């Protein structure tokens, strides 16, 4: 039952990365690929209807984590106190920038929110990637069962490193580049004209950079957390996820070469899912590795709720998740096809009012 819920939480967070990933990436890119107000409204129009729903996967995934592994939620969230509050502030600013930009036609107002949107999106990608890096590297859980981490102490991963060290920043940058490619491909798929051309060029560049970083991150991960690689190499499921990574990459490259943007975007999604699945598959049953001693590792069994709660929750999850997917499909169908922006209707309330 713990393994099942480990899977459910992992899948929900992976869905979050794939879905919110493209709007984070598009946000990080949009200053470069969209230059005029009409073009920027095209970008925002492509992600506007879906970003809130995408972010809900983070909240729902967080809710599932509390439900299934309350101890992991408590230990992890309090240990990463400052970086998580930073994430919250960035989420607030990013949500505001998407929602408020359109309300006032003043060009300065819009330029301001465009920059806030780009910065918050890029920083969120880095911080979320660094968080993943921390989970892989491990944190100094001691005999009290808790940990606290400074933002940074030493640059190299080890006992005295903080939330940010060379490894976690590397994973953060890798995430930013990966999501930029993902978001660029999404825009290339959903837009037309100059925005599409620029998005495609940006995505090509990001994918090339991603390939280099992928090698670096893989090498560093094996160095930093050898136990993960060792456990992973013994599990057929992990080999399967690596096949998914390879398949995603193949689809991505093929889509780029043949100018099939939908295929490339799908490949990028597969690539991200495969990577996360391989990390999750290799980590099981450990939710949080201790850098102090493997004795203090926080395992799924130790952190889990009791069987009754998990079984009941499974029942209503089997009702709730299909419903959520149905809404999502309905929304995606409503907004399918390339996105075109209409000329903005004249606003009765000009910049001089209010």
């Amino acid at each position, binding site marked *: 039952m713990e393994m099942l819920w480990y899977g459910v939480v992992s899948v929900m967070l992976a869905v979050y990365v794939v879905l919110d990933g493209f709007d984070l990436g598009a946000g990080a890119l949009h200053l470069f690929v969209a230059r005029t107000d009409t073009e920027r409204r095209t970008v*925002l*129009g492509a*992600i*506007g*209807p879906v970003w*809130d*729903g995408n972010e*809900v996967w983070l*909240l*729902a*995934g*967080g*809710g*599932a984590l*509390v439900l*299934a592994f*309350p*101890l992991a*939620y*408590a230990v992890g*969230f*309090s*240990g990463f*106190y*400052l970086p*998580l*509050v930073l*994430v919250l502030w960035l*989420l*607030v600013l990013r*949500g*505001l920038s998407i*929602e*408020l930009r*359109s*309300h006032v*036609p003043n060009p300065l107002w819009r330029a301001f929110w465009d920059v806030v949107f780009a910065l918050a999106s890029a920083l969120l990608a880095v911080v979320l990637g660094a968080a993943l890096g921390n989970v892989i590297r491990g944190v100094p859980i001691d005999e009290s069962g808790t940990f*606290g981490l400074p933002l940074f102490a030493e640059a190299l991963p080890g006992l005295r490193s903080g939330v940010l060290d060379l490894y976690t920043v590397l994973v953060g940058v890798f995430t930013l580049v990966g999501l930029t490619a993902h978001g660029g491909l999404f825009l290339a798929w959903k837009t037309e004209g100059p925005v599409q051309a620029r998005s495609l060029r940006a995505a090509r560049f990001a994918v090339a950079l991603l390939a280099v970083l992928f090698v670096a991150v893989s090498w560093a991960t094996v160095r930093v957390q050898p136990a993960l690689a060792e456990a992973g190499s013994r599990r057929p499921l992990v080999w399967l996820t690596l096949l998914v990574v390879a398949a995603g990459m193949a689809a991505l490259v093929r889509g780029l070469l043949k100018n099939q943007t939908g295929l490339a975007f799908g490949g990028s999604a597969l690539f991200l899912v495969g990577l996360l699945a391989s990390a999750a598959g290799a980590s099981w049953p450990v939710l949080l590795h201790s850098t102090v001693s493997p004795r203090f590792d926080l395992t799924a069994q130790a952190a889990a709720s009791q069987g*009754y*709660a998990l079984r*009941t*929750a499974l029942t209503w*999850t089997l009702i709730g*998740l299909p*419903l*959520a997917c149905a*809404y999502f499909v309905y*929304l995606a169908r*409503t907004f399918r*096809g390339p*996105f*075109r*922006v209409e000329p*903005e*209707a004249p*606003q*009765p*309330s000009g910049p001089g*009012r*209010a």
Partner: protein
Amino acid sequence: MTDPLFWHRLQFGFTVTYHYLFPQLTMGLALLIVIFKWRALKTGDAGWDAAARFWARIFGLNFAVGVVTGIPMEFQFGTNWARFSAFSGGVIGTTLAMEGMFAFFLESTFLGLFLYGEKRLSPRAHFASAVALFVGSWLSGYFIIATNAFMQHPVGYLVAADGRLHLNDFWAFVLNPWALWQYAHNMCASVLTAAFVVSAISAFWLLLGQFQDVASRCLRAGVVAAAIASVLQLFPTGDRQGRMVADHQPVALAAMEGVFESGPGAHLAIIGQPDVKHRRLVNPVEVPGMLSFLAYGSFGSTVLGLNDVPEDLWPDNVELTYYAYHVMVGLGTMFIALGLFSALWLYLGKLLQSRWLLWIWMLALPFPYIATTAGWVTAELARQPWIVHGLMRTSQGTSLRVDAGSTVFTLAGFAGLYLVVGLLFLYLVGREIAHGPAPSRAPPRAPAAAALAGGGRA
């Protein structure tokens, strides 16, 4: 300054109070918008559509701020209250996860369709998306109230060998009787806030002689809704909620009512100041025996006084508990008076001409917010010193590894960020009110609007 508990409480109290300024409007407003849309659908009267469209814009702004300030709430259980989460997550994780699964997905999907989809959807489909949004936001409210109800009156759990709580009875936990009455009371308050906001802005327009068609129909609907909600707020929901407190948290009741001396025939203090040091109520105006009657159904019933309770089981701020409760009840009484009187004036056909009454409605806008906030302050302070009533003290629920300095820093950050958010919100809402429900105006230029208008649907 160095006590982390104080700062953790202040940060949670501040962020949750601020957050709830927005959902309390959107939940009630969702119901009123559904009613407006329904009347438009039934009568084909374009005025109701214009009204619904204007309030949808106000709804959208409130909803956006509610969403961005709501995300920190879900995180803070873990960041600031790790020991509480570890202790009770096995139970309250159920409602927190259900909120995500059943409410958030529903809300986030239909929000875009409702706000920007009017041109693309048929009138019926658009009405249905308004209903879906209403259901989603009210479900969200229920799951949060059920979570809070567990902290007030824990049911459906068992204590495991390691001391952590685990779910034992799903239905007992989800249908906690405390949750049912608290939810009813809270949702009436939400409708009351929405009705007052609708009425206040309509009164503002009428006093200025603007948008008279939409303003007068919104005022009529708002006044009727306010009258109904204010009465329901007292009876049965407030009354039953009070009995819950009397039955399950007698110490909280004593602090709320300022009762120090136990005994039968307890007086109900209308006003008066608690003097905790000398354990008495100063300058009281009291109704003899009334508290015994309200709490337990007869004038002779015995009500527990704080004198018979060890001080370490008292709410740690008896004065604020007492004042917050009396502010809520006092305002609630005035809402009933204003609501019923205005409904009578409406019936007599004098409401729209009585400028003095319109002034009162316009200026009444902040008071339901104050009453609701005071009500929640009462509920949360009266529960102290417990974070889970009878099971875990608040002082044992904090994160051990988060020091006071970090929390002061993040609290200051939240305060600054929320100040900016509040100013932006007021600026944008002010623009909308000044512009009013003009029929010529295109839907707001939000991204989704353009998407629906221009999407390349096959």
